[in-house]
Each structure stands twice: as C-alpha cells, then as structure tokens.
C-alpha cells in the first residue's frame, strides 16, 4: 500500500496488463507456434527440408536481391535525402510527401503496376527490350520491386540527420582546406553511417519478407525467380504444413540475425562516436 501511494498516476496495472495480454495473444503465442510445430520434426527431417535445392535457390534470390536492392537504395536514398534536406526548388513539399508513396501504395497495386510497366510492351520495358534487357519475369524484376518498396526507409532515416547536422563542422572542414567533395566523403558521410545502417537494415528486413509487390513481376519459376515467401505459400497450398513451417523458421531466424547484427554494429559505432 505504501509503495502504491508513491504513484500519482493510475492505471499502471490495467494498461501494462492489457499490453502484455494483447501482445501475447496476437503476436507472441502465435509466433511461438511456428517453433513448436517445427520441433515436431526430427533434425534430419528439418535439415532435409531447409536444404532442398529449391529452398536453397529461393534463399539465394530472397537474401541476394534484398541485399542488392537495399544497397542500391543507400545510393539513391542519400541522393534524395541530400536534395530534400539541402536545396530549395519548386514543388519540393510535394516531392517530399511523394517519397512515402511505397508505404502508402498497397503491395498488390505496386506489384501489378511494376509488372505492366516493365513488361516488354510496357511504358518502361519497351525502351529496355531493344537493349536486350528483360526485367519482368526475371530476377532483375524482383530487384526492381524490392527497390521500390525499400527507397523510403533510407531517405527517412538519413534526411533528419542531414537536417540536424551542425554547419560548424562543415565550416571547419572548409577552413582546413577541404573541398566540397572531400568534406562530404570524409566528414559528412561518416556521420551518416549509423542512420544508413538503420535504414539499410529496415529496407533489407522489409524486402526479405516482401510478397505482394514481388510475385506479380517475378514470374515465379522454381529454382530461378521463386522467393522464399512464395515457396512457403506453395507448400501451404499443397497442405505441406511441416515444410512451410520449417522454411518460416529459417526466414524468421535469418531476419532476427540481421536485426541483431545491426543492433550490435549500431551499439559499437555509438560507443565509437561517443569516444571521439
């Protein structure tokens, strides 16, 4: 009773209790079910499923395309964030709002739209076809779709950092004789690393699990253009629940490892910056 009276505000037990209950019912217990279901498999069975050639090919595509798309978005994201943070031009507010379009546009809409655009007779595809570049129904299409959904993550993590950067640091670099390019490359870019890492990992994690925007443009050929989430769906449609669950475990563990690694890097670079 004495401890309770220290709290002026009411509702701690009610809100925390409700939070934990709802979190457990909607997220934690159902997610734990994946691991429980997998534990019914023997280790050999599990290993056999998750190292099947078709599964390995899907990891290569899912992890590879997600990685490359996030990497490309680092480049484009810095460019867009820089322009939005540093320059003034006509229509900037509209452009700024438009950056979030991939968040607001449902994935199925993005999927059929990108497919129509990059098909050999599409608005963009018809210019690439004479060059011998085919995007729709190839791995390049998967990459394009993942780039589309990942772009805002990098822009939105880098832009606020660029806006808050102390101008004195750049002035110091300039007064010490650095030209603009050297200042960007050696002074500004290193200060962006933590934000870039966060943006990269968010874009990568999102791309890894992405389904709607990819399946239309990918063509979904086993061993070639089949992403892991689609392979899970295929197994589910064949009522192969054990197979689907085993692949889901691989994906979950994969994305948790990525997030953990990024958090560790973040923590180390944070300490490093604090020492400087």
């Amino acid at each position, binding site marked *: 009773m004495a401890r309770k009276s220290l709290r*002026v505000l009411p509702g701690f037990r009610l809100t925390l209790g409700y939070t934990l209950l709802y979190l457990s019912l909607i997220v934690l217990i159902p997610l734990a079910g*994946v691991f429980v279901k997998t534990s019914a498999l023997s280790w050999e069975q599990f290993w056999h499923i998750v190292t099947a050639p078709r599964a390995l090919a899907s990891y290569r595509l899912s992890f590879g395309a997600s990685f490359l798309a996030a990497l490309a978005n680092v480049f484009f994201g810095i460019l867009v964030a*820089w322009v939005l943070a540093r320059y003034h031009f006509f229509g900037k507010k509209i*452009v700024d709002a438009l950056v979030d379009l991939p968040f607001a546009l449902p994935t199925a809409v993005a999927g059929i739209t990108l497919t129509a655009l990059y098909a050999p007779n599409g608005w963009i595809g018809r210019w690439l076809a004479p060059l011998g570049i085919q995007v729709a129904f190839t791995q390049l299409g998967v990459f394009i779709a993942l780039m589309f959904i990942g772009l805002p993550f990098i822009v939105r993590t880098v832009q606020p950092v660029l806006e808050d950067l102390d101008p004195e640091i750049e002035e110091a670099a300039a007064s010490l004789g650095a030209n603009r390019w050297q200042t960007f490359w050696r002074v500004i870019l290193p200060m962006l690393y933590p934000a870039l890492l966060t943006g990269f990992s968010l874009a990568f994690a999102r791309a890894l699990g992405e389904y709607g925007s990819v399946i239309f443009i990918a063509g979904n050929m086993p061993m070639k253009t089949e992403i892991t989430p689609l392979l899970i*769906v295929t197994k589910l449609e064949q009522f192969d629940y054990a197979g689907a669950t085993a692949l889901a475990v691989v994906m979950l563990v994969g994305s948790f490892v990525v997030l953990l690694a990024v958090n560790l890097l973040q923590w180390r670079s944070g300490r490093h910056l604090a020492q400087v």
Partner: protein
Amino acid sequence: MGDTTTFFRAARPGPHRRATAESPWVRWLLITAALLVLGIFLVVPLVSVFAEALGKGLGFYFRTFGNPLTLSAIKLTFIVAGISVPLNCIFGVAAAWAIAKFDFRGKNLLITLIDLPFSVSPIIAGLIYVLLFGAPGPFWGWLYEHNVKIIFAVPGIVLATTFVTFPFVARELIPLMQAQGRTEEEAARVLGASGWQTFWRVTLPNIKWGLLYGVILCNARAMGEFGAVSVVSGHIRGVTNTIPLHIEILYNDYNTTGAFAVASLLAFLGLVTLVLKTWVERKKEAALQAAETDLTA
C-alpha cells in the same frame, strides 16, 4: 589578396558562394538526378495505375465497380479495417500509457517486442494463424465440432490484418508521450481529477495528432494488406476476398483493365493517406516541439 576591401566583401553573404555550399551547376545536377530517380520509380508507376485503369474507357471503369464481387470485396475491406484499426488503437494507447508514464524493468524489451511484427514476413503472419486455428492446429477439433470458422473466413482475415498493423499506433505514441513526460497528468491528479478525467482532458488533447497519424498509417496498411490476408482467406469469391485479393483474381483472370480499375481505388486511397499524413505530421511536430520547449522552460 591581402587587400582589406576584398576581405570584407568575401565575408559578406553576397554573390560569392559560401565555402559550405555546392556550385550552382552541381546543385542543379543533383536536384535533376534526384527528381529523375523519383520520377521513374514513383511518379511513373502512380500515373500508370490510373492510365491502365481507364484503358477501356470510363464505361468499363464504372462497370467494374458495379460488379457485386467488387462491391463485396470493398465491403469486407472496410469491415476488416473497421475492427483491426480500433483494436490496435486501444492497444497503442494502453501500451504508450504504461511505457511513458511509469518506470518498470524490461521496458526496452517490451518496446522491441511491440515492433516485432514489422520484421516478420506477412506470409509468416498468415501462416502462424493457420498453424493455430487451421487443420494442423490444436483448436481445429473443437472449432470444427462447434462449426466456428476462423481460417478461410473473416475472423482469420481480421487476425492476420491485426498482426501486420500491430505496431503502428503504439510506435507513434510511445516516443511522443515519453517526450511529453508526466508532469501535466500529475498536476491534474493533484488538483483532484479522476484517472479517466486526466486521460480525456489532459493526455488525449496532447496526443491527438500523434494518435491520428498512427491511425492513418495503420488504416492504410490494413486496407492494403495482401500477403498475410492471402494466406488465411482461402480466396472464396464474394465471401473472403478483400480489395487487394480481388485485384489479384481479376489480374489472374486476364482482366488486366478491371484489376487496374480496382487498383486505382487503392492508389487513390494511398494518395489521400499521403496528403492526410503530411498535414497531420506538421501538427504532430508542432505538438512535440511544444512539449520539448515546455521541458526546457
């Protein structure tokens, strides 16, 4: 060099370029490149949705919306969002209240767990409910006996949508309420307000823009979710098809124009979301800044 007049002129912000700015042509080049990237990657797809939708004329466009299957998909989408969004909204407020207004152990772990659904593939979000309530699950026998349908029915769609939109409101409110602190609520309590009065008259007016922002994002995702819903819905036409699933069916039936017509509805919804979001964002940032100046004052 060394001449005092030029020294003073250089120090003045005038036609001379500052040492920390790029030359005009570099600036022009960068702006053009950025606009080109955004144009090709964002504007062209957006415009093409509407162009494809109207490919067979206005008559066809409106006939697609007269189709009973389209109408039932639209209705189901609104029902699902109408349940999932309020559920996550109540959760978001409760979680933010507990986390921002009180100190307890494991708070950071709780925040991480709340964000967890964002790093789970939507396909897995659907799969977990199939494993729990579907034929392989522990509740299947009981559900079958009592004729309760969750998977391949509306409750499953609501659950999957709730999972993928779970963090939206909470992750907006937690930092906002943490920044606002607890002094205003404590003052209200000391002055004799009840807990609910404190919440309705002090907290809610402070967080309303953040709350609205979270609700807008949550709703956009709830109405547009495809992967998670596709796993649990069973694709029963006219019964368990939401708008995104209906788009897929039309597209796979080679009715591309019809698919884009329905897609244009979601694209329009996305544009409305962007406009609302931009407007609310400004209000929200003003509220956050007010909270920060209050703290420093």
